[in-house]
């Protein structure tokens, strides 16, 4: 009897623990789903008094919608730069033997965590200032790309390394030029890797606050992550109605991107190599 009592208690304990953990993570999401539609949103989750007024108010805010567009520009621009240059660098590093290649990669990877980190913000700001890149979206894109590139090269090099060279050699024997080999063979074969890196770069830029906050002066160039910080009521309190609505709109594009990429490109690999 004692044994089964103990078993039952353990079972109850385990499920209670799991429920608490689940609730802890689910509540903020639930708040995000309900608060935007609530007439008087609070910090707690409750059944909403349904309204779409919050969205209307948000549209009236001069910077809100524009900031989402700015986020797309920054994220898209950075992702394009990172994917293009990381793919070229990773292909070269994977196929050409240069002395000190691995040391170079590890060194870059180590330094990259510092480059866009808080520690180097002052010299980066100084650099951007001298290059006339203050209050320029291009400046933000370049700095963010620089920070993401080493890790992107590292990830893509792994993809390139696992692609057999016989694909390329085969195409070469048929007379394909280097550019044709890259376009017809290499890019399609490593496409899942490119998609992964693109999504990862977009997500990284989308959530970055510090770099655009410091480098962009005019509010009409600021991305959503920065504008979120300005949503206060006249009294200096956080405007929960606007904040929750904006948060919902802010998180949707990234979620949609994940869904789109994983359904379109998927993370599959059709083998053409007999192992």
């Amino acid at each position, binding site marked *: 009897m004692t044994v089964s009592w103990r078993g039952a208690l353990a079972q109850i304990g385990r499920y209670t623990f799991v429920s608490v953990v689940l609730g802890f993570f689910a509540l903020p999401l639930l708040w995000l789903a309900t608060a935007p539609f609530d007439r008087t949103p609070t910090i707690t989750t409750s059944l909403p008094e349904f309204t779409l007024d919050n969205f209307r108010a948000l549209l009236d805010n001069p910077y809100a919608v524009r900031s989402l567009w700015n986020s797309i520009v920054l994220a898209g621009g950075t992702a394009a730069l990172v994917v293009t240059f990381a793919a070229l660098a990773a292909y070269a590093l994977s196929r050409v033997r240069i002395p000190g290649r691995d040391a170079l990669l590890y060194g870059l990877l180590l330094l990259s965590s510092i480059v866009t980190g808080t520690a180097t913000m002052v010299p980066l700001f100084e650099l951007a200032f001298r290059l006339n890149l203050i209050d320029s979206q291009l400046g933000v894109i370049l700095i963010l790309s620089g920070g993401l590139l080493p890790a992107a090269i590292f990830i893509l090099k792994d993809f390139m390394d696992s692609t*057999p060279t*016989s*694909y390329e*050699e*085969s*195409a*070469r*024997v*048929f*007379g*394909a*030029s280097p550019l*044709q080999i890259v376009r*017809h*063979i290499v890019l*399609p*074969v490593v*496409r899942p890797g490119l998609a992964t890196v693109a999504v990862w770069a977009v997500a990284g830029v989308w959530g970055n606050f510090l770099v655009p906050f410091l480098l962009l002066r005019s509010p009409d160039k600021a991305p959503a992550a920065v504008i979120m910080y300005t949503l206060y009521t006249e009294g200096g309190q956080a405007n929960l109605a606007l904040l929750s609505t904006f948060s919902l709109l802010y998180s949707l594009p990234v979620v949609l991107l994940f869904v789109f990429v994983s359904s379109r490109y998927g993370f599959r*690999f*059709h*083998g*053409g*190599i*007999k*192992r």
Partner: protein
Amino acid sequence: MSAITLSRLTKVYPGGVRALDALDLSIADGEFFALLGPSGCGKTTLLRTIAGLEVATGGTVEIGERDVTNLQPGVRDVAMVFQDYALFPHMTVQDNIAYPLRIKKVDRSTRQDKAAGTAAELGLSALLDRRPAQLSGGQQQRVALARAMACRPQVFLLDEPLSNLDARLRLEARTFLKRLQSELGVTCVFVTHDQAEALALADRIAVMDGGRIRQVGTPVDVFRRPANTFVAGFIGSTPMNLLDAEVTGDEVTVAGVRLAVPEAARPLVSDGDQVVYGVRPEYLDLHAEAVGGALVGQVVVVENLGSSSLVSLDLPGSDSSAGASCQVVVPEGREPSLGATGWVLPREGRSLLYRDGELLGTSQPAPVAGVPG
């Protein structure tokens, strides 16, 4: 014309590994030619140098009387089938076969028609829309062959074409490949480490070791009269018996028994020469009673090969040398019992003498025109 001529071809890899060592070789138009050797002998490097994937350090490669030594692979008019087939995983079978035509800027409908035609020749019509991952190993190999055929090259290069197939499929593919080659009549060079495959497929074989060619000849040549002890030990499903011997007049003493010196070697040896007596297990007959001119030994192992058995005998040592062992192939039903004494009689004209590793006397038919050395 698409003969291949290699002269003084040398390939040294960075780091000093000499993969090809001043190699001379002629491959005739329409010939099915095998490059055979143990791994690391340079056979794959040779194939890749002919294809243009490796740049020669020295010497020249000519294909169809055109010097292609410094040309890119794409303009050499060769097609290569890789060991792993290298079918493009993101393309269908039809797109794979049509790829060489796509590079040649053939318009889409024409090249798809041609690809479908080539696929039909190889029995692949039902698989045109599949991707490589959805094919069996044998089908993948055929697609790789079809893709190579699609651009109608002067020369086919095959790297270990059968090594990725299972044993049964390999036999089927071997017959298929030989038939295909004779129908296309195209010059074809293939690399293999499997001597049985080379003997079965090739018109001529080059046996390679350490970046050099040790013998070039028809399967019959290299099987019956290996030019040196390396080839003798490498060719044949059971290696040749190589026994230390000493010449005395017209005879050689092998394991205490005096045997006749093979006819071709007779003018080349003199009394007291230390030689190696070579004879294939297939060219020995085992007798249970004493016969003249036979090696005597004790049966130690009998291995069943199906329709025949491989019998190993220990030969007694003489004063100067330790005992040797000798293998004989006996037909079914003639297996001796273990421990029995056996008399091993070499067949007339099948034994060879080697001195310093090289064959003495060449009574083989005149080499095919264009074969150097």
